[in-house]
Structure formats: structure tokens, C-alpha cells
């Protein structure tokens, strides 16, 4: 495939990108609802009794956590809770790029819709990864220790939370959709680089 075909492909990606961003943001309330449900299941299984509730405010989530406070500091009839606000879209912002790449690739009545569904489904666990690590980062690294004294974590676990948060927010949201596209459209990429197949598949 000549270099101007690559340029044409990139142009198509740029043409699809605004539409994909619009669709992604337009459906963000509904997708956040599903993500909130999955986050609740995941966090409740990882930290039983820690999560009081997960509330959705448009495209944002408030994860409400039961915290520990001396009884004297909690007014009678009230419980000590800490809401942790999280924007789930931060962990999924690469999805419009992934969708644009698929739509700009050669169209097939079967493969294209299936790949669109596939990229939507595969990106969910990575989004949950980012949300959970931001939650843990806020709760265990940024909140005063006396409020979470009922959860004990080792220093290596805290380091793991810091690295996981950075990976989940800086790398995964944009890399994952591209990797999925590269994998699904490897035939198409070979057209860009005809020698690729020989180079990689060489024993």
C-alpha cells in the first residue's frame, strides 16, 4: 500500500473522530450506569463492608465509603461516610479513537459491527481497572490514615496502588483501543507494510 493510502486512512480516522467523540459522550450517562453497577460488584467483593453506596451524578460517580472515626466525633444518629468522586470517562477516553480506527479501516458487514462491539466490551475491564485504582489511591494514599484504620495494607501494596493508578490513568485508556485495533486489523496493517509478515513470522 503506498504512503498516500496511509495518509488517506489517517484522514478517515480524523473524519470519524468527532462523530465517535459525540456518540461516546452522548451515551456516557447510560454507560456510566453500567460501569457503576460493575464497579460496585468489584469493590464489594474486594473490600467487603467498606463500600456503603455508589451514586451516579450524570457522568460522574461518587463512591461512598464507610470510614472509622471516634464515636465522640460522629453526631448521634449519623454514620461516618466519605464520598470519593470519580470521573469514569477519564479511563475510557481512548474508546472514540478505537472506534474511529475501526470505522476508518476496510468495511465488512460482519467484521466491522462485531469489532465495534468487541472493542466496547474489551475496554470495560480496563475502565474498571482505572476506576478501582483511583478509588484505592484516593482512599489509601490521600486520605488521613485514621479514617481507614480498619483496612490494613502493606507498603508494597501501597506502591502497587500508586503504579496501578498511573498505568490505569496514563497508559491503558489510550493504548488498549490501539492494541485491540492492531490485533483485529493485522491483515490491513500488512497492506501498509508488505514486508511485515515476512519479518515477524520468520522462524
Amino acid at each position, binding site marked *: 500500500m503506498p504512503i498516500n493510502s496511509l495518509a488517506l486512512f*489517517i484522514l478517515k480516522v480524523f473524519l470519524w473522530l468527532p462523530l465517535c467523540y459525540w456518540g461516546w459522550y452522548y451515551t456516557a450517562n447510560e454507560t456510566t450506569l453500567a460501569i457503576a453497577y460493575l464497579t460496585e460488584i468489584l469493590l464489594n467483593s474486594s473490600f467487603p463492608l467498606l463500600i456503603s453506596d455508589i451514586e451516579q451524578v450524570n457522568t460522574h460517580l461518587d463512591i461512598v465509603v464507610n470510614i472509622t472515626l471516634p464515636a465522640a466525633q460522629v453526631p448521634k444518629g449519623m454514620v461516618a461516610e466519605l464520598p470519593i468522586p470519580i470521573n469514569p470517562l477519564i479511563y475510557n477516553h*481512548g474508546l472514540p479513537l478505537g472506534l474511529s480506527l475501526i470505522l476508518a479501516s476496510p468495511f465488512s458487514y460482519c467484521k466491522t459491527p462485531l469489532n465495534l462491539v468487541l472493542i466496547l466490551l474489551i475496554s470495560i475491564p480496563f475502565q474498571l481497572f482505572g476506576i478501582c485504582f483511583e478509588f484505592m489511591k484516593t482512599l489509601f494514599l490521600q486520605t488521613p490514615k485514621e479514617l481507614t484504620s480498619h483496612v490494613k495494607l502493606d507498603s508494597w501494596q501501597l506502591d502497587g496502588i500508586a503504579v496501578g493508578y498511573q498505568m490505569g490513568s496514563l497508559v491503558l485508556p*489510550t493504548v488498549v483501543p490501539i492494541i485491540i485495533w492492531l490485533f483485529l486489523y493485522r491483515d490491513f496493517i500488512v497492506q501498509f507494510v508488505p514486508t511485515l509478515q515476512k519479518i515477524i513470522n520468520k522462524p
Partner: protein
Amino acid sequence: MQSKASLANLIASDYKSHDENTLSALTMFKFFLYFSTVQLCLFSLEKLNSTRELVIIPFTEKLAQISTWLIQIFDDQVISNGIILQHLENGFSVSIESGCNGVEALMILASAMLVFPAPWLFKLQGIIIGFIAVELLNIVRIISLFYLGQWSLVAFEWAHLYIWEALIMLDVLIIFLCWLKFLPDTPERVTEKHAD
């Protein structure tokens, strides 16, 4: 029943590896596995305090200086202080934090080039050219966000959190595809070609 079978066959043929002309799923999987490992190593290295103090922060400060120098060509009311860019007239400032200096994008590109089977000199050339291309676009990002923030904070948030991240990564993908396009033929491959 027949139509169902035909549809299944059609889907299967779409996903089937065409032996000679495609990359096998296993090969791709191996590539992504090596890529992720190198990526994780580079990422952990970047997060070390010593790396941050000796490399990342001075580099980010230099990026802020270059951005300020470029802005001052048309707007002399802008100054930089460390990793912060500030407009003297309205007091608006932006801080170039981790994730905004293009280092993560560079690490992704470098990881992909390092694990790809290519001559080392070609990998080095790719990383250097990639560094220049990513950082040039990153400077455009910093300057555009600086002015976008002065105009509308909502637009700033949108561009900062969602759009520019994807554009930088698209830049990385384009550089990688172009790099693949110019992959040199090794003598072994040339021999193979003649044998064919």
C-alpha cells in the same frame, strides 16, 4: 439453518488467518506481551524518585521554557516558572504535570520499536524521530491548552482530559506505522526475495 451456517462461515472467513498474507494471532500476542513487559519496566523506571528528579522534572521544565519562548513570539505577557506557565495579564497558569509532558507516549512508542524485530540503528533512528514528533505535538498541546483555559475552562477540561490524549496517541500510532513502512530489507530478506 442454512443462512445461519452461511453467516457463521462468513464471520469465520473474515477472522481466519490467510496463512501467507497475514500475521498470526500468536505472533501478535507475543509482540504485545513483550511490548507490555518493556512498557511496564520503563514505566516503573520513570516513577522512581531519582529518575523524576534527574530526568523527568528538568525535562518538563525545559518543555515549559520552550513553550514560553514560542508563545513570547506573539504574546510577551507569558512567563514560565519551573513547570508552570503563567499569563501576567490575567494570572491564568497551567502546570505541566506527569502525563502532560509526553514522556508516557514516548515510552509507549519506544517499547513498540524496541520489541519489534528490526536493526538496532533503525530502532534508534525511530525513537529519536518519534521523540521529536511527539514532543513537537506536545508543545502544540501545551500552548493550545494554555489559551483554551483562558477562554473556557469547560473546553480546557474536555481538550485536556479527552481529546489531546487521544491525538497524542494517534500521533504515536502514525509514527509507528510510518516507521514500519520504512523498515529496511536485511541482506537475508533480500536473498529470500531473490529465491522467491
